[in-house]
């Protein structure tokens, strides 16, 4: 691929990223603010000789993804908050059957029908197993159009590597805005689209039949599956935590934010640094696994640190920061939701008051 710069929305960048990552099957249902993604896939998937289906419901879409994934193909669906709630049973089945899949949530305001403005109120749902059972999805939070594109390859690779669903947590702002996207940077090897994993259902030609299941009624068997899953999650926690840091060497105050909120917070941190304030930033990129080690390291290395968590919610990632620090540093919070976004002025005011 040649080096090329294009102007594109976040939603379309996700679609393009998915196709370039070898996504073979997409099923979706209309919901704002992710419609650009569905329409991009409707246009681009058939052109790339891939499968696009407008499903009759969010529930049907996630179960079509279950089928395509069980058949061994890279499969994804996308939606926004209320639609993601509907998909939760299906995501639990994917986790239970250990099927890879990518699910994109372009978050909007809630609860209920809420509104169509950007929000980060689905953090708990994404990171705490939104459906039933003891499971985790890997959760990636892009904060730019470039990352919206790049993380799709990462998401499919992680989903395949761990045979686990991966969530992309975007939001209405990131999905709708346009930014330049640089193509051709990727050092990833292209994915062989028609590669069939050995566990997939493809017809039992020259092998024993495969069964994809999550039902285990015999005593002790389901417990064994759960222990196996827990081992897998432990490995993911050890290996896959990702984050960005800024000015942590001498920072006394550390701001913590992800996604759209991190864009605003990053600009605040840079502005206050210019004014000589000893301030830094941690931007979690994986929300699960949460990058807790950087928090633990900092709290041991520097005494008297203050953390300010800023979210477009009323304090959801805040809990993970507190759990990571385990009382070793002071944690403050600033958040707005339901379409409200903490402004630069509000954040600066809060930092000064710390």
């Amino acid at each position, binding site marked *: 691929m040649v080096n090329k710069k294009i102007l594109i929305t976040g939603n379309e960048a996700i679609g393009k990223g998915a196709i370039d990552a070898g996504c073979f099957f997409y099923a979706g249902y209309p919901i704002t603010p992710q419609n650009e993604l569905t329409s991009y896939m409707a246009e681009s998937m058939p052109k790339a000789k891939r499968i696009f289906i407008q499903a009759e419901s969010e529930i*049907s879409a996630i179960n079509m993804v279950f089928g395509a994934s069980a058949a061994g193909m890279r499969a994804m669906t996308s939606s926004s908050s209320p639609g993601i709630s509907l998909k939760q049973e299906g995501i639990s089945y994917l986790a239970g059957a250990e099927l890879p899949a990518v699910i994109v949530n372009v978050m909007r305001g809630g609860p209920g029908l809420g509104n169509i403005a950007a929000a980060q109120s689905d953090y708990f749902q994404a990171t705490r197993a939104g459906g039933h059972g003891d499971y985790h999805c890997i959760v990636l939070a892009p904060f730019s159009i470039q990352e919206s594109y790049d993380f799709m390859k990462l998401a499919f690779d992680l989903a395949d590597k761990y045979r686990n669903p991966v969530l992309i947590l975007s939001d209405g702002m990131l999905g709708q805005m346009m930014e330049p996207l640089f193509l051709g940077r990727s050092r990833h090897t292209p994915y062989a689209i028609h590669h069939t994993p050995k566990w997939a259902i493809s017809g039992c*030609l020259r092998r024993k039949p495969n069964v994809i299941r999550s*039902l285990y009624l015999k005593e002790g068997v389901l417990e064994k599956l759960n222990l196996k899953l827990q081992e897998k999650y432990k490995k993911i926690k050890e290996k896959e935590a990702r984050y960005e840091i800024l000015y942590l060497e001498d920072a006394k105050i550390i701001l913590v934010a992800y996604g759209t909120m991190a864009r605003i917070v990053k600009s605040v941190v840079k502005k206050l640094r210019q004014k000589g304030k000893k301030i830094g930033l941690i931007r979690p990129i994986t929300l699960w696994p949460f990058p807790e080690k950087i928090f633990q390291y900092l709290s041991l290395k520097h005494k008297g640190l203050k953390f300010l968590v800023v979210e477009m919610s009323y304090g959801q990632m805040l809990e993970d920061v507190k759990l990571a620090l385990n009382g070793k540093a002071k944690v403050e919070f600033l958040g707005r939701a339901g379409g409200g976004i903490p402004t630069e002025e509000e954040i600066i005011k809060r930092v000064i008051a710390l």
Partner: protein
Amino acid sequence: MQKIFSPPKSLRNIITHYCPGCGHGITQRLIAEVIDELKIREKVIGVCPVGCAVVAYDYWDFDCTEAAHGRALAVATGIKRVRPKNIVFTYQGDGDLAAIGTNETIHAANRGEKLTAIFINNAVYGMTGGQMAPTTLLGQKTITTPQGRKKEKEGYPLKISEMLAILPAVKYIARVALFSPQEVLKAKQAIKVAFENQINNLGFSLVEVLSPCPTYWKLSPKAAMDWIKDVMIKEFPLGRIK
């Protein structure tokens, strides 16, 4: 000496968990025989959703997947669209296909997915202990209609097969029963047609099997078969619907 009869290769030689007199065992065997006869065992994929149907994947000896309750035809759609050369079928109960999964059923049929659906109608929820199904007959007692199903409260038995027959993308619909050797043979023939249609890429096919549930009908296996013959087929007439 020539061997003229043996158990189907597509069925494992193990004891099922089904109750005495249940129709699942007969239907699952018929499906296995048809798959053997059509020589598609190596490319068939079965979809077994929640209910007594789900454990079929322990009895069949070919590739299968589970599906969440009601979602068999959505899962099957995903499989068939990415693997159009495979033969994909669903095996669903009445609660799955005609209550919680009605939406998936209607839309998969309306899209004309090249799928085969085998629909077990036993007029009751078996796995959960005998509750009213969408196909429960008027007056039929279940644990959630202890006085019998009343049309004023619970509506009428849902005739999903007749509903689907009006959809232009639906190729074939038949209703069969298992209460005599002749009917079993007819059932097998209908199942075969439904699979052949998929092999020939013709469109959506569904076979509704009126199947006994002696346990939750509170009848002996023989009386349950007779009840289908004497009572159930009056509400659900047998034969080709489309």
